[in-house]
């Protein structure tokens, strides 16, 4: 059974091991210098009492809601449209996927330049033509998070488009034909054939997007460092600060476990609530 060795070793060391270790560590106090101390739920008490956690939770949920609002419907509509193209649709999908290929750090540094708050800035310049702005973008606590959402939506939409497109290729075309024979117009065919077919994927992508956006990190770190006035401090950024700035690994893992439990409860609840819709 030599063949099972790589997978066993790698998963033991870098997947199963750390997961178990994370659960244990959340109950310990450890800073890598002093001996490990068992503190029970103390880390959780500490984390829950930290006002920054409340702020980070609100920010993260706010980000997730905004990201769903901007980022969820757009790829669905785009994929539905692209699936009807004949011939040149590869040009569309390639263009839609280019932002996904862009390394996040490159995208962020570029967009940070685009978000220049002066009237000459890239976006302010464009909007200025229509008599809008100048907007402060990342410099104001009110617009910093929406600005990050805008970039994240741009960066991620292509991925969702491809997945919806793949799902749409498996619609049985005789259903469209049957609907058409029954006198269904285009809108009703979208509503009664196309969307129901996508339902399973849509629900899944919704859940995955929520789980993904709750773990936002690189964008706030490089765009704003969590500011201005902590308005873009996310839970993951806080975990990073706990562990790698303050060296409090116990608090960091306790917060990670809390987030993971919240996500697990969310997905379980979501699955239960939507079970009836997703199995036709």
């Amino acid at each position: 059974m030599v063949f099972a060795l790589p997978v066993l070793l790698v998963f033991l060391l870098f997947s199963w091991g750390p997961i178990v270790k994370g659960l244990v560590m959340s109950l310990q106090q450890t800073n890598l210098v002093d001996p490990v101390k068992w503190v029970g739920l103390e880390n959780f008490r500490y984390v829950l009492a930290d006002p920054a956690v409340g702020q980070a939770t609100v920010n993260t949920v706010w980000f997730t809601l905004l990201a769903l609002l901007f980022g969820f419907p757009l790829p669905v509509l785009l994929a539905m449209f692209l699936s009807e193209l004949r011939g040149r649709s590869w040009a569309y999908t390639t263009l839609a996927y280019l932002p996904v290929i862009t390394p996040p750090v490159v995208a962020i540094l570029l967009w940070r330049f685009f978000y220049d708050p002066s009237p000459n800035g890239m976006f302010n310049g464009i909007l200025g033509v229509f008599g809008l702005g100048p907007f402060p973008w990342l410099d104001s606590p009110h617009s910093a998070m929406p600005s990050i959402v805008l970039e994240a939506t741009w960066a991620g939409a292509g991925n969702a488009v491809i997945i919806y497109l793949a799902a749409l290729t498996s619609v049985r075309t005789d259903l469209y034909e049957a609907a058409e024979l029954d006198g269904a117009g285009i809108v009703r065919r979208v509503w009664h054939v196309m969307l129901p077919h996508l339902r399973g994927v849509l629900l899944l992508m919704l859940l995955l997007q929520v789980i993904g956006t709750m773990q936002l990190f690189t964008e706030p770190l490089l765009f704003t460092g969590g500011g201005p006035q902590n308005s873009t401090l996310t839970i993951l950024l806080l975990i990073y600060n706990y562990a790698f700035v303050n060296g409090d690994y116990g608090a960091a893992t306790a917060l990670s476990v809390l987030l993971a439990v919240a996500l697990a409860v969310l997905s379980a609840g979501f699955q239960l609530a939507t079970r009836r819709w997703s199995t036709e």
Partner: protein
Amino acid sequence: MSAERGLLSQTDRLRRRVRVPFVIGQVVVFAGLLVAGLGPFLWLLKAAISPTQDSIRKPLAVFPSGEVQWQNLATAWQQGHVGYYLGNTAIIAAGTALGSLIVCTTAGYVLSVLRPRWGSVLSAAILVTLFVPHIVSLVPLYLTVLKLPVVHTNLTNTFWAVWLPPAASAFNVLIVKRFFDSIPREYFEAARIDGAGSLRVFTALVLPLSRPILGVVLLLSIISSWKDYLWPLLVLTNPDLQPISVALPKIAKVTELNIQLAGLFLALLIPVALFLVFQRAFLRGVGLSGGIKA
């Protein structure tokens, strides 16, 4: 030809009330995608060879001062060490891809072809990790790499720290296993009767047959390793080993804007080129990932 239809039928497409809005829609969507997808890339190309003042004062104009600074790219490559960091990135991506391939092909072989009695347990244990958010293991994974269990080696500031952890990808194992499942069992039986051992069946039969899926795994892991930021930031603190993603924000702090933008352009060029060359395999891989999650 009826299989060729989608939501719109041939008669729909010929009807004026459908055709006109549909064509207008195509133009609008294509223009939007051009601006959003290609726009930033083209602008970055222009800015990479422009003087700083041009990009700051009139970002929307094409070479307002009439000056084209091709030397920005060379300066970024040499003085900004972009070339060096890209080299690091390539080493990291290549090692990650190789590690992933070794793990997912051998695992797929065990689970799909050899099928030992404990295979289902292993399968379930791998599947479970898909449902645990990565965040739970970020900090403990870092501590693991800091001091590897049993052997007590410190992997930080070695490439092993970025090569090995991504190899534990349940997703890769599952898509490869699924592909192996689709190879007819008769092939294996025939090979066995001809006297081939497990190793020979693996190298001479399974691997050559599964080239398409291995290409997908290879591409997906190269690109995701190219995009990674947080993990190399944590485990590669020695600047000599860092990939371009970790180096760029630091370069950005100390260099002039035109050199900085030239660096960004160079960092973007390779993933985009890779994507354009292997576009079909790539998009298929993403489509697959949606399929397996569903």
